[in-house]
């Protein structure tokens, strides 16, 4: 089975490990993430002012071209997911805007694509029980905290992937992979997002809360779905460590990396080396990898 897939700008470059691990993992449960033929950047942020239709034309173009070859489109990155899914709902529900945007990009897209996140594919199409059955290397003994951030969950009306205040999808996945899922209360809070460009202090503070809270709740590793979250958390590690007594840092990995590992992929193909903070020593200590 082939599942049409939109990589987005980041997965093709700095977050390569995210993509390769996902593709490999998909193969081991029997389907292929097939990159859509021609795509452009989604714009990386959904315009919050409803009159800003120009900003919707990029994601609409992605959707429109994906629709030409299929009925669904899946993403890995939370931000792409957010932008594409919200744009899609505008294209589906707002006749006037749809007309204008289609005019800009010279198509007649109607919002009929089904935009999903890879997590949804795993949960709803494959089923976590099947994932569990396919596990070759259970992540036994690993205390992993899921970090959701904002874009996967909010606004709930549009995203609806899970309960916006108490999501469980990643915890359930981690549990299926054999890990001990740690719930930290701050897992739905923002990492600082694009403020990385201008206000590093804020990013350090926000990311710091997320990481220290996970550690306090017993986590040994944080699992994310977004390259920007991953970047912000990792980048803040050293400053947080110097501000927080007793905090020594924690690896931040993509959920697909853990998935790939559990499904028995070679650890070297999963891009752990691309993460700033290497998770491999921990995994070795836990006996998950050699």
């Amino acid at each position: 089975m082939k599942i049409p897939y939109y990589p987005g700008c980041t997965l093709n470059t700095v977050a390569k490990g995210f993509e390769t691990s996902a593709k490999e993992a998909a193969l081991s449960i029997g389907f292929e993430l097939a990159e859509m033929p021609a795509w452009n950047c989604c714009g990386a942020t959904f315009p919050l002012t409803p009159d800003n239709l120009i900003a919707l034309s990029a994601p609409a173009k992605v959707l429109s071209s994906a629709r030409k070859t299929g009925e669904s489109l899946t993403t890995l990155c939370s931000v792409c997911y957010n932008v594409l899914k919200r744009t899609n709902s505008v294209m589906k529900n707002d006749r006037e805007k749809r007309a204008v945007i289609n005019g800009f990009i010279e198509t007649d897209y109607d919002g009929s694509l089904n935009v999903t996140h890879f997590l949804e594919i795993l949960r709803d199409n494959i089923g976590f029980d099947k994932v569990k059955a396919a596990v070759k290397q259970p992540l036994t003994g690993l205390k992993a905290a899921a970090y959701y951030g904002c874009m996967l969950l909010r606004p709930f009306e549009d995203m609806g992937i899970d309960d916006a205040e108490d999501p469980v999808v990643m915890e359930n996945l981690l549990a299926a992979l054999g890990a001990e899922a740690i719930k930290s209360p701050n897992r739905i809070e923002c990492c600082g997002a694009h403020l990385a460009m201008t206000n590093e202090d804020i990013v350090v503070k926000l990311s710091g809360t997320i990481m220290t809270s996970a550690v306090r709740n017993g986590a040994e590793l944080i699992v994310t779905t977004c390259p920007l979250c991953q970047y912000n958390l990792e980048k803040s590690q050293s400053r947080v460590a110097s501000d927080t007594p007793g905090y020594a840092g924690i690896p931040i990995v993509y959920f697909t990396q853990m998935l790939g590992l559990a499904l028995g992929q070679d650890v070297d193909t999963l891009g752990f080396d691309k993460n700033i903070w290497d998770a491999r020593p921990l995994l070795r200590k836990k006996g998950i990898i050699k």
Partner: protein
Amino acid sequence: MKIKLTKGAIENPLIRQLERVSGEELKRCYQCGKCSAGCPVTFAMEIPPSQIMRFLQIGMMDDVMKANSMWVCVGCLQCYARCPQSVSVANVLEGLRQLHLRKGEDREQIKDVPFPFLKNAPQQAIVCGFRKFVS
């Protein structure tokens, strides 16, 4: 501070424009403060989210336009997610940014963005940052 309220000030055309641009009806905010309570960057804002709403309700557009609030908002939508009145302060703040940007008043000069950031950060951060700070 004493604020002199007049009908003219309350009906500031720029504020009406903001309502159009943001798509948010400022009057719906009943000042419960839940947005300020949950916003992760309230601590860094010169005017916290609920007060932004209040200032705009009483016509204090100048103060709002000068404050850093719109630039430190991370767009996390926590304010909207929990607002009992379904007001999106995030939209209002983006509207305020747009009012600046559409006049060409950029928050950030591309040349000032540190090179290591451009080199290492995920593309999405750069694209998003430019969209939020540069016209």
